[in-house]
């Protein structure tokens, strides 16, 4: 309690957000004492059209050994929005993204503190199995990653088949649905049994997206999904993200300002491990409050 009052004095906005979260989610689990917020400029956000939180990070810090990847990031992710993470290379946006589905678990030197809430539950909680979390929070990587020995079909249904779902009618249905969602079905429907690695780069990336969609995730994390693709494939994937956001919440890391502007509803700007500014994409691109944000999006650095 003492801790909370101290926080109230120091950072009124963060505390207000905590309260609003409590009201919205009846936050489960014992409340953790979060450490005081350091000198980060945090811009409070206008309510995003009454949308509810799908995820939220509170005072999230990721360290690699003693090096800090991202520090003290408090950021809400609203339901069925596209949130773009932008910032110069090495600013921590990928590090932040990977914390959202516990990908740092594999790196022993990485330590994550703070909270990552998914529907109000901390995904780093003691009784949480990261495998279940990753089924709800999918991820697409910079480079397409088809499983090299599997056919297109097996790639798509891997997330189901490899956990023991064998019912062919169900797998067929999921495969077709996911490929259609990823706008790849028409191109590959006659060669579902041929190797996934035989597709073009753009198709492979859409295959990776289809594979991620097949397990029906609620949130999709995308780490520069178009950076290794040609403009045409990039286009297709952007269209895809546009339609997908009706069904899933999307967090996308991008180096491409135009892409962020085109795709996202909200944008968060990271700089040297800190969240500098966040707001609606329109606000960030037209009237940023921070000079560093303005300098970055106008191409003066980064």
């Amino acid at each position: 309690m003492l801790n909370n009052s101290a926080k109230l004095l120091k950072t009124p906005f963060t505390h207000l957000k905590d309260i609003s979260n409590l009201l919205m989610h009846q936050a489960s689990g014992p409340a953790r004492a979060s450490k005081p917020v350091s000198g980060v400029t945090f811009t409070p956000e206008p309510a995003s059209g009454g949308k509810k939180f799908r995820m939220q990070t509170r005072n999230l810090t990721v360290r690699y050994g003693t090096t800090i990847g991202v520090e003290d990031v408090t950021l809400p992710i609203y339901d069925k929005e596209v949130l773009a993470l932008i910032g110069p290379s090495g600013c921590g946006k990928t590090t932040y993204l990977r914390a959202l589905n516990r990908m740092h678990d594999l790196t022993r030197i990485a330590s994550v503190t703070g909270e990552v809430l998914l529907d109000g539950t901390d995904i780093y909680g003691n009784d949480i199995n990261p495998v279940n979390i990753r089924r709800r929070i999918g991820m697409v990587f910079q480079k397409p990653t088809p499983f090299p020995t599997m056919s297109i079909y097996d790639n798509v249904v891997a997330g189901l088949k490899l956990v023991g779902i064998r019912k062919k009618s169900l797998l067929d249905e999921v495969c077709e649905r996911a490929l259609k969602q990823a706008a790849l079905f028409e191109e590959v429907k006659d060669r579902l049994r041929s190797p996934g690695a035989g597709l073009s780069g753009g198709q492979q990336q859409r295959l990776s997206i289809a594979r991620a969609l097949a397990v029906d995730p609620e949130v999709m994390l995308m780490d520069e999904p178009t950076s290794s693709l040609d403009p045409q494939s990039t286009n297709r994937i952007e269209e895809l993200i546009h339609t997908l956001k009706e069904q899933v919440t999307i967090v996308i890391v991008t180096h491409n300002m135009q892409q962020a502007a085109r795709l996202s509803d909200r944008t968060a700007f990271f700089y040297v491990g800190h969240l500098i500014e966040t707001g609606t994409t329109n606000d960030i691109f037209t009237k940023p409050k921070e000079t560093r944000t303005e300098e970055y999006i106008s191409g003066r650095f980064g």
Partner: protein
Amino acid sequence: MKTMLQRNIRDRFMEGLLVLSTIIVLLPLIIIIAHVIIHGIGALNWDFFTQELGSPSRALQGRPTGLVHTILGTLVVDFMALTIALPVGLGAGIMLSEYPDHKLNPVLRVMNDTLNGMPAILKGLLAFVLIVKPMGTFSGFSGGVALSFVMLPIIARTTESALMSIPWSIREAGLAIGLPRWRVVLSTVMPAARFGLVTGTLIAFARAAGEAAPLLFTSFGNNYLPNHWLGMILGPVDTLPQRLYSLAISPYSHWHNMGWAAAIVLLVFVMLTFATARFFTRQKF
């Protein structure tokens, strides 16, 4: 300031040195193969592959004699060793490659390298203490265990490097669709590395198939084919490398010739294994 000509000569000279070292490396191999074939080919006949060795008098009296029991024994002991070493070696290799953060990993790595560098005869001694003494008899099984100690560290290390050659991104992609870690290794990483895994296993197999030392006081040797096939596992059994040694130190010229013939069979066996390994190495996905 050197002239162009001088530099060219220097270049050619260095290239010549490389070719020379290559020849020096290949020469012993060629000499061994040629020598073994010249001496042994005469003793390779139908009897060699169908008869058992028996006592020295058989050869002295010109009765049919051969090494069928040795060839069969070699296959039994070697495959027994493979059956023991493969699962354990694969497991250790997976541990080394896929769980680099695990506390046991550094220990395992040092132990594995130590086991690999340990003299083969000590591995025989270990199998002697572990199996032969309690069983009260030399046996094919103890020979298999001794050879598995030879195979194990090689399989572990080749498995590790085969798995490490698969990009880390494949594992992350597997985890990102909610697969447990063991499932990612089993269903995505290992199939991708399958040719490397087969190659490593074959190299370990060929290496162990040529070992005589671990077998001297484990499978021991036998001049006869056992009455029952179980005798090959539970009783003393002949193997090519150890028989080769016994024939070579015997005082009978007929046995010497058979020793050379045994060497041919062993060479062909080992070289075929290596050739198969080479074939798999060249396979792509």
